[in-house]
């Protein structure tokens, strides 16, 4: 062999070392936000700054939870919009990508390209028209409107991910089911959906994370405090918590926590799907 045992050991150590370094860099901002969120006010304004609090406290969290609308309204709205938007996106995208994957019809390729091409439209482009539409329909400050906009934004991505998945499932399975008397929708539900669960979980997670974090549409459409989502709420904190960085960071941690948990729960399916080339194009 070309590579000796010694060289192998060196490889393992250097690869692990580099990866640990990359992990430290990528986690540092989050870790520092976490330790800051447990500091009391005076420690946040101490020089030189320390990484760990000298005195651990949950003051920051108390402030966010009891004196702001973050938990009461903003996170509730965020959850409703993100969850509603992602579930509906995936449901609608399943139908569309199944049609693209299993049926040959005129214009299918062109239609797929057009739908994917929508990704190129800057999200900023549609803001003004969407705002005018919402105000004419009386839908400003509503979850329904946010969910609708999120579905429209998420469909091209989800269709792309799901079609790749459906393509990888042999059509013979459904044919067998249909010969045994299943309708098209039944075979979709009982055969294709269970087999493509990782694909759907992946599409769902991508949408959920994206919608949870969405800012531009939300900050444009949501002006009422009771309708705001967490990112908009955090944005408007700027005025009220100037130097209370522990409060800021506590809010950041609270906003991140649900998506991190969601990601940790489905990470296996998600990694598997992306690694198998869900986005290979």
């Amino acid at each position, binding site marked *: 062999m070309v590579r000796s045992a010694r060289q192998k050991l060196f490889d393992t150590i250097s690869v692990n070392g580099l990866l640990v370094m990359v992990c430290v860099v990528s986690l540092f901002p989050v870790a*520092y936000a976490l330790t800051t969120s447990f500091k009391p006010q005076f420690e946040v304004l101490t020089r030189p700054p320390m990484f760990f609090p000298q005195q651990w406290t949950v003051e920051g969290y108390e402030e966010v939870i009891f004196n702001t609308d973050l938990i009461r309204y903003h996170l509730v709205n965020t959850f409703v919009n993100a969850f509603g938007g992602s579930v509906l996106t995936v449901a609608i995208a399943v139908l569309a990508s199944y049609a693209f994957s299993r049926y040959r019809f005129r214009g299918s390729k062109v239609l797929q390209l057009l739908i994917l091409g929508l990704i190129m439209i*800057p999200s900023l482009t549609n803001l003004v028209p969407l705002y005018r539409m919402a105000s004419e329909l009386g839908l400003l400050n509503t979850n329904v409107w946010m969910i*609708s906009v999120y579905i429209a934004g998420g469909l091209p991505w989800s269709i792309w991910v799901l079609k790749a998945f459906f393509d990888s499932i042999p059509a013979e399975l459904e044919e067998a089911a249909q010969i045994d008397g299943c309708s098209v929708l039944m075979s979709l539900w009982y055969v294709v959906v269970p087999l493509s669960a990782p694909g759907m979980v992946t599409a769902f997670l991508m949408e959920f994370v994206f919608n949870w974090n969405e800012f531009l549409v939300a900050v444009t459409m949501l002006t009422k405090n009771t309708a705001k989502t967490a990112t908009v709420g955090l944005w408007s904190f700027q005025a009220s918590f100037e130097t209370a960085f522990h409060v800021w960071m506590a809010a950041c941690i609270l906003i991140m926590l649900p998506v991190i948990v969601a990601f940790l729960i489905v990470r296996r399916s998600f990694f598997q799907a992306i690694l198998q080339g869900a986005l290979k194009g």
Partner: protein
Amino acid sequence: MVTQPARSAVRTTTPAVARSRFNRFVPLWMLLPTLLILLALQLYPALYSVYLSFNRIQAGNLIWVGTRNYERLFRDARFIESLGTSVVFVGCYLVLTLSIGMLIAVLLNQRVKLTSLYMVLLFIPWVVSDVVAGTMWRWLFQQDYGIIQQWLNPFTNNVSLYANPTGSMIIVILASVWRALPFTSLVFLGALQTVPREVLESAAMDGASRITSFSRISFPLIRPTFIVVTIFTTIGGLNAVGLILTLTGGGPGGATQTSGVYLYKIGWQFGDFGQGAAISVVLFLINLVATLFYLQFQRERTMG
């Protein structure tokens, strides 16, 4: 956009029942919800935006002004400047994201024992929102109490990196790369895993160095993925607004004001919808040209 011959070969037959007359419209019914939603909430607003770019809004009414918004745009020094800023930002963002992302993917592809743990840890920045990331990064570089600023102080004469045009651009780029790396490296890793191990091993036997076997064997094989990631990273960079807005708001003195940020300010803070729409049409055309450019590149290479 990019077809996948290997996959589409799997789709050989249409299900038997679907061939019957009754079921001929099944695909149409399945596509209907998607088409309706995309028409109403993507295509219509986009076309409306194009229409708006030829209008001025006065007291809530639209007044047709022809191409005047565009003429004004190309005489607007701040817009031209923002295009330059966009080029610098997207250029650095693209190069760093692709190169570091590829490096991480190569490291993960060595399949050391803790790989799955590393992947989870590396992926955390992906779930962080722009506004949260902006808030956290601002705190790192805060003038008096920021922990990274503290380490930098000896080199910057105790002045925050934010106060400096180049410094704030560096922060904006680093924060954006930080957000983009997880997904990029994961997609690259997926592509690298398709490269047959035996080929790489036999190349190593023949004395090829790792760099040679990466550039001669692995990279050509994953080029299609590389191009797609390049396209989406470019589009993402051109349209990035949230993070820059929360980090610097385009400052100091317009140093980090990319065209996207300028568009947001013109259209939203100054309420000049017609002018904003004109910028967004220009941005869309840039996206389109960039995409076609990269696709062309891919076609040439695969032909030759």
